[in-house]
């Protein structure tokens, strides 16, 4: 099966550097999925995106887009990709609509008015189409960058920190739009610092640290495997509890941390306390942030999943 993106053993070492910025990274993005590439600053995320878009040449390894090596037939692979760069553009010469017309031309589309107007409307930029970039707000600039990336209807969309510095409402709108693109069959590779967003949005994630991918898998599976469930039980009176999961007792409040895979009913039965003494149970599930912190703090390389 041909995958939208396959990265195999990618290595990138910059000139005048003795350290590899990316050290043998491998992962893939499947059809119509949102894949999140997560990692601390300087982990190598943008370098990987630069290798996919041919802004940077790999030192070693292969990057294939729809089965084609980006270094062998970049004209083909570039047509399949739309890119939203991390930093906003600041082009001073042209207005919004002109920028999108030129962008269409770069992709070989002479008459693309219909698509441009669709994107302008979809991204709430239609009324600003005759403004120059410097007249746009930060959020509008971000949306313009997304419109630019989509003028040629790419099958693979690369979003490099697209919501950095964007307000919550706009972020929500953008993610809804990304979900819509996925439902239309577009695959998305996303890098973001907002882990709660990645958890909501991404079907799978890859966690990268110091240039190496340390974990790849389904988002829910990673959360399940690398986090613990926090349970607070309020009893009617103080009771004797013997449990390896008990962390703290404050009055009648008992705090436990249990593995995700342990069924809640089984755990309560094991406590051996009559259920009529239970007044309240509160459960706090683990999240991607907790899993992320746990994974990047591990020092021994690849974490199998």
């Amino acid at each position, binding site marked *: 099966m041909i995958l939208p993106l396959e990265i195999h053993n990618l290595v990138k070492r910059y000139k005048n550097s003795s350290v590899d910025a990316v050290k043998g990274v491998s992962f893939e993005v499947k059809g119509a999925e949102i894949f999140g590439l997560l990692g601390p600053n300087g982990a190598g995320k943008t370098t990987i995106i630069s290798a996919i878009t041919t802004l940077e040449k790999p030192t070693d390894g292969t990057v294939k887009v729809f089965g084609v090596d980006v270094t062998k037939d970049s004209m083909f692979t570039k047509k399949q990709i739309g890119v939203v760069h991390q930093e906003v553009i600041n082009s001073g010469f042209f207005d919004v609509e002109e920028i999108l017309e030129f962008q269409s031309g*770069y992709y070989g589309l002479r008459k693309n008015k219909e698509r441009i107007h669709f994107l302008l409307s979809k991204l709430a930029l239609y009324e600003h189409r005759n403004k120059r970039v410097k007249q746009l707000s930060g959020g509008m600039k971000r949306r313009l960058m997304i419109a630019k990336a989509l003028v040629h209807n790419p099958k693979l969309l690369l979003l490099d920190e697209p919501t950095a510095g964007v307000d919550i409402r706009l972020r929500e709108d953008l993610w809804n739009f990304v979900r819509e693109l996925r439902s239309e069959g577009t695959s998305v590779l996303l890098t973001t610092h907002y882990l709660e967003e990645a958890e909501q949005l991404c079907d799978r994630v890859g966690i990268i640290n110091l240039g190496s991918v340390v974990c790849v898998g389904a988002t829910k599976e990673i959360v399940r495997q690398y986090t613990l469930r926090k349970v607070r039980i309020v009893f009617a009176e103080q009771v004797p509890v013997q449990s390896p999961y008990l962390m703290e007792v404050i009055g009648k409040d008992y705090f436990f941390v249990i593995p995700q895979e342990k069924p809640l009913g089984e755990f309560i039965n094991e406590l051996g306390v009559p259920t009529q003494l239970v007044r309240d149970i509160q459960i706090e599930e683990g999240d991607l942030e907790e899993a992320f912190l746990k994974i990047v703090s591990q020092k021994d390389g690849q974490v199998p999943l």
Partner: protein
Amino acid sequence: MIGFLTIFRREIARFLKVIVQTVITPFVSSFLYLLIFGVSLGQQMDSHQGVSYLAFLIPGLMMMGLINNAFQNSSSSIVSSKFSGDLEDLRVAPVTDQEIIWAMSLGSVVRGTLVALITYLVGSLFMYYQQGEWLHIAHPVSALFFLIVAGLIFGMIGISVAFWATTFDQLSAFSAFILLPLTYLGGVFLSIEHLHPFWQMVSKLNPLLYLINGLRYGVLGVSDVNVGTAAVISLVGFAFFFGLARISLRKGSFQRW
């Protein structure tokens, strides 16, 4: 091909957006050069190869304007795109290096030729005012050849320097310390026949001398150098700088400053 046409159209649209800088400024400077050197000082200068000093000056100024503007057009386009981040769009889009080089260089030819044409029209008006006759182009095909080749060469030099430069200062330094002296010493204002034989020999090592005199032959029918030699040197220069521009795109960085 659509990619090439788009970049070319963008280059034209870009310089037309800043028309004061790209067209009006050269008009004013050529007007002043012709007024001071051509009209005021020119009356004290002997005619050269049967043409007045004013007429001699016009093709030199045309080529000087073309060279400066062709270089500025491509180099400032790339440097401002590096600054704004637009240049990354070109690298990630399916356009070839050749399309980028040809589109930007031809953009330089259009802007340079426009400035040369303005200089010609202003000079022709001065000629009519001073001598009662318009300046007729002696060899239009030769004139067009040298305008196009010089525009392409300096468009490509602009591309190469802009990819090499890492700051605006480096771009200005190239213009001030290399381009300007070579232009001024390339026979814009004086025929090299007036120089000492040693300096004549030195001048002949300046490639701009051949472009300036090539255009002078095209416009006036007179030249300090053999036109065939000028044409061959121009074409060799074109091939060299085309190669250099290709290397610059392949090795240079498209990433923003």
